[in-house]
């Protein structure tokens, strides 16, 4: 079994599904001969042909719009938006069409579409290349929103997304693409959507995060462990629909919760999780829920991006605050 990084795991999952199901087609900008700007689709056009791995003209609206037509007519399109900062022209099609075609036709037509897009900051990219749009997508009824945080989960969740009969937004944290390698078996085993993964058990508090921020969150858990504090770490993974029971069960044991995300704070998914904890888990809480998030500022260019991204220190400080509360 080979050790691979997250972007190679994406490639492996795409190749697996292209080979398994001839209805699967990939489309996007520069995904063919170039293999994608991050090489997520490297070698796939050569292997599966230009009819199934399609280099499209440069128009995000039509990439998603045409993929909706393909999906409704029996294909399983996996569209790539080169960076999530370029997803916005396609929001009309995601919100008004992909997310509601099944409902609008009472199940007559469906939209088994995956939109893959790199997201997040921390790779010193140019302007508009470091967005975290998960909350606005999660706010849309009818969309699933998934963000992997390891090669194995990228492989398993992408298989599940492609096989899912409904539209799935698959957000790939660019900072995780080549951050570490792990063994991933190309066994075609999908991971479940709609569930959180508990990455490490703990008893003193619960750290909830997703995507690239799990790197800092795990590091914070290590730092806390060095002080004798036992932090449970949950990877939300599927951001919509949210697996609240897993989070509630953890917080019922620990009594304390810190939610960490890279996206801006206001109306972010941290607010949704905190509100749900207030509704369903208030009496388990020993301290107010804390959020460690990106600021409500424009994502800065690369010189300041690490001052925007939640740091290990900020997460540890928030954890201490919950521990000191009672």
């Amino acid at each position, binding site marked *: 079994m080979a050790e691979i990084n997250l972007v190679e795991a994406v490639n492996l999952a795409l190749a697996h599904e292209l080979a398994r199901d001839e209805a699967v*087609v990939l489309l996007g900008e520069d995904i063919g001969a170039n293999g994608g700007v991050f090489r997520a689709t490297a070698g796939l056009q050569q292997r599966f042909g230009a*009819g*199934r791995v399609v280099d*499209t*003209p440069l*128009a995000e*609206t*039509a990439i*998603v*719009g*045409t*993929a*909706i*037509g*393909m*999906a*409704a*007519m*029996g*294909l399983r*399109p996996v569209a790539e938006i080169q960076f999530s900062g370029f997803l916005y*022209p396609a929001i*009309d*099609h995601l919100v*008004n*069409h992909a997310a509601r075609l*099944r*409902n*609008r*036709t*009472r*199940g*007559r*037509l*469906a939209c088994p579409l995956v939109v893959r897009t790199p997201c997040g900051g921390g790779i010193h990219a140019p302007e508009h290349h470091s967005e975290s749009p998960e909350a606005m997508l999660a706010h849309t*009824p*009818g969309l699933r929103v998934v963000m992997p945080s390891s090669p194995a989960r990228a492989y398993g969740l992408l298989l599940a997304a492609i096989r899912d*009969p*409904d539209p799935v937004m698959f957000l790939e944290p660019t900072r995780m693409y080549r951050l570490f390698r792990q063994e991933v078996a190309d066994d075609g085993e999908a991971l479940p959507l*709609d569930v959180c993964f508990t990455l490490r058990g703990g008893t003193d508090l619960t750290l909830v995060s997703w995507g690239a921020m799990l790197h800092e969150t795990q590091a914070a858990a290590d730092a806390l462990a060095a002080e004798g504090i036992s932090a449970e770490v949950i990877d939300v993974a599927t951001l919509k*629909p*949210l*697996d*609240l*029971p897993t989070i509630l069960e953890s917080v019922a044991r620990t009594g304390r919760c810190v939610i960490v995300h890279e996206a801006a704070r206001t109306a972010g998914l941290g607010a949704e999780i905190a509100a749900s904890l207030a509704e369903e888990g208030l009496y388990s809480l020993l301290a107010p829920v804390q959020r460690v998030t990106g600021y409500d500022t424009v994502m800065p260019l690369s010189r300041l991006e690490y001052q925007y991204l939640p740091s290990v220190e900020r997460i540890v400080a928030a954890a201490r605050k919950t521990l000191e509360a009672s």
Partner: protein
Amino acid sequence: MSTVARFHIDHTRFLDPQGEPLGPLPDFACDPARLVPMYRAMYLTRSFDAKAIALQRTGKLGTFASALGQEAIGVGVASAMRPEDALFPSYREHAAQLVRGVRIEESLRYWGGDERGSDFAEARHDFPNCVPIGTQVCHAAGAAYAFRLRGEARAAVCFLGDGGSSKGDFYEGLNFAAVWKAPLLVVLSNNQWAISVPRSAQSATATLAQKAIAAGVEGVQVDGNDLVAVHHVAREALAKARAGGGPTLIEAVTYRLGDHTTADDASRYRDPAVVQEQWSFEPLTRLRNHLVKLGAWGPEKEEALARECAETVNAAVEAYLSTPPPTTAAMFDHLFATLPAALAAQRDEALRFAPRTAGRQPGGDHG
């Protein structure tokens, strides 16, 4: 300096506004067995249209978009389609939808506020009405790509209006389909008005058909009130699409004789005298005159058709008004193939608080 490319736009018209042939006609245009069903479909569309407006005015239907004056376009194009093709309509193409097998009661359910109206019993592959302007061009291009990839002899047919031609989706969809040589027909029903904005304020181009040229797509203009011309160019475009010749844009020039929708009052922004003038170009009279000259039509047949259409429409209205109410759970049950666990509690809440009035009949809540 040298000319590197040169373009032109053809305009097709076979019958003048009085129904007189302007030259040799295509074969089908001399065959009553082909023409009469299309005349019937146009007549039925107009009967349905008038009834839908009456239902709205009496509080029995929601907002409705009339196709008055544009019947030849939908009927002429849809009659050139095959059942296995797929239609991507705007919200003003019930003429095409009726030909495709969409039932009047289904259309009424849709305009009456019931999603089941888009669960067509026939035309299972056709898209529902598209309200976000022009977006359907992209969907149709993607569908056409799917047909081509699988080697199927099917075509995607998309309708939009003159306002829609200002949207990026229109150009992007055409551009993708052209690069893909996808079997796509885009029909632009240029009815001169996008709600209150006239054609002259919509685009500075001499024609809307020429917008296809920028995408490398053949663009043609047709008299949209001449059923013979519309059907002829649609047949040619679909034959080309099936033969691998790629997409076509047809600009069908017509006139919106009614308001934008029942929620609009066009007298606020256009001269009723101009609208009155446009009635002399409307498509039903033109085709009827032609049928009379062919010896295939007369007052008795016209009266019989009027009766038949009235009966069909009345039966559909009855079916619409007696439709059982939608269930509260339906909001949730078609959102995903399988309801996610996270939504189960919301579904339960909706059911628990569902008002008893959820059982009211269609048409009972459009004040």
